[in-house]
């Protein structure tokens, strides 16, 4: 009995994974093709995100302060000396939540600037990030 149930689970899982890989993989390829063409026309992305667009007074934090916010439910990251609370943004990240979650509580500058080793972020992404700024590193 349990063997049959397990066999069913494994088959459903394999089909589900196959579906995700094929559907997502095709879209990913399409995105990559389109981003190559848009990159050539767009201006060179900045390496430094636009900071201080909000008028609210920003606090300064130590890296130790930031490291206390290392959970999915409470995720701060550091990018080029700016401290960002990305907790509520994680689920909206087009490249997948995981890409941000892995940096929670740490310095994500390199990850952000190199898009995890796959290029660089768009101006739109820089702007989205700027909204999340809560302070700077001491």
């Amino acid at each position: 009995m349990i063997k049959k149930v397990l066999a069913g689970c494994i088959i459903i899982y394999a089909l589900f994974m196959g579906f995700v890989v094929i559907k997502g993989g095709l879209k990913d390829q399409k995105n990559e093709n389109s981003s190559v063409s848009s990159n050539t026309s767009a201006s060179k992305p900045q390496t430094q995100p636009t900071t201080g667009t909000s008028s609210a007074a920003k606090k300064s934090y130590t890296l130790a302060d930031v490291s206390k916010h290392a959970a999915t439910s409470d995720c701060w990251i550091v990018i080029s000396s700016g401290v960002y609370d990305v907790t509520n943004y994680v689920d909206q990240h087009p490249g997948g939540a995981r890409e941000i979650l892995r940096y929670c509580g740490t310095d994500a500058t390199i990850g952000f600037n190199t898009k995890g080793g796959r290029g660089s972020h768009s101006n739109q992404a820089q702007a989205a990030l700027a909204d999340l700024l809560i302070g700077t590193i001491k």
Partner: protein
Amino acid sequence: MIKQKWLGFWVSVAVAVIPALLWVSFTPIRNDALAKITALSALSLLSFLIILSGRLPIFEKLFYGLDTLYKAHKNISAIVIMLILAHSSLLTFKYLQISDVSAFKFVIPSTEIPLLLGKFALYIMVTLVVLTLYFKIKYQWFVLSMRVMGGMIFLSGYHALFVAGSDLTQNVPLLIYMVAIGASASAVYVYKSLFHGSFVKTYSYKIISIRKRHNVFDIVMSPVGKPLNRYAGQFAFVTFASLGEGNESHPFTIASASTDEHLRFCIKNLGDFTNSIGQLKVGDTAHIEGPYGYFSFSKIPHKKQTWIAGGIGVTPFLAMAQSLPTGYAVNMYYCVRNKQEAVFLDELYAIADANHRFNVTAHFSDSAGQISAKTIHSRSSNNYLICGPQSMMESLKTDLVALGTPKQEIYYEEFAL
């Protein structure tokens, strides 16, 4: 006895549910709660499986016999795999809600080591469970598979502690529970698998006679030091030093009377490890770990019993028949294909001659077909003990119940690895 069996079941349920309850009580619920809970239950159960594989006497008692413990072990393994698949699917589904691409990126091998190890552990475990559950593999491959599967506790543990998004370290009661069960499992694993340690005393024996009868090796050994104390029907794990075989121990039923200080094993040649038994010589040393098992006439309330042996499943009954005290009335059916295969029939007849309350009937399936429940069914209150091929035990049990025998009056050795 039935209540005892349920005890093991409920302990297993508790092992799965405790981490879930601890997680729910001390972590704020979010959309990935179910993914976290399935993972924690799976890891907790995987640890429990490794602890069970240590063959600790307390767990044998909990499951009322090592055979039922192994059956539970098999079922829990299947449940662990289902939980892990659910964990992986739920997380993938979460990313799927963000975008197809993000789910795709989650599924493909990533550069994040703890995540990669988790995926690796999942694929290895699924492969091994499929291999051991759905394919008939040799015993030594089975043991190796279980060893590799046990090793996955280290990868899964690392994954659980360090993967991005893990909040295990922030929930102290849960962390304490998981570390405690995980560390116990790791200790059992290292002691058993890497050092070949045993939690049960081992005894040294020397082979004093070995002969081949049809396709069965009949081995008798005498104790080098203290003899093994057991009751009739129990089995032990045997390691033959001269065979090497990576120091593998194999479970065999003891066929000699419980009062006999000699140990006798009747091992059917199945073409795998049992083939190498032929290389054993008189004077070779055997290490015996045990005894294990609860399959015995002495553990059963009724003194009027029917025993049904199928093929090599006769071994526990050989020990029991020779150890039968007065007051017991036993009808035994020895089921084999033909007369040639009935290696132990003369021996059983000799015991029956000496004890008029012990009757033996031989059943040859080549001429008479499979033994039917109607043949063995007794109208008066009775207990049935069955040991033989799995299919025979299952069909007899079903048919006996259909004839009105209460389930709890049927006992069988579940030994099918």
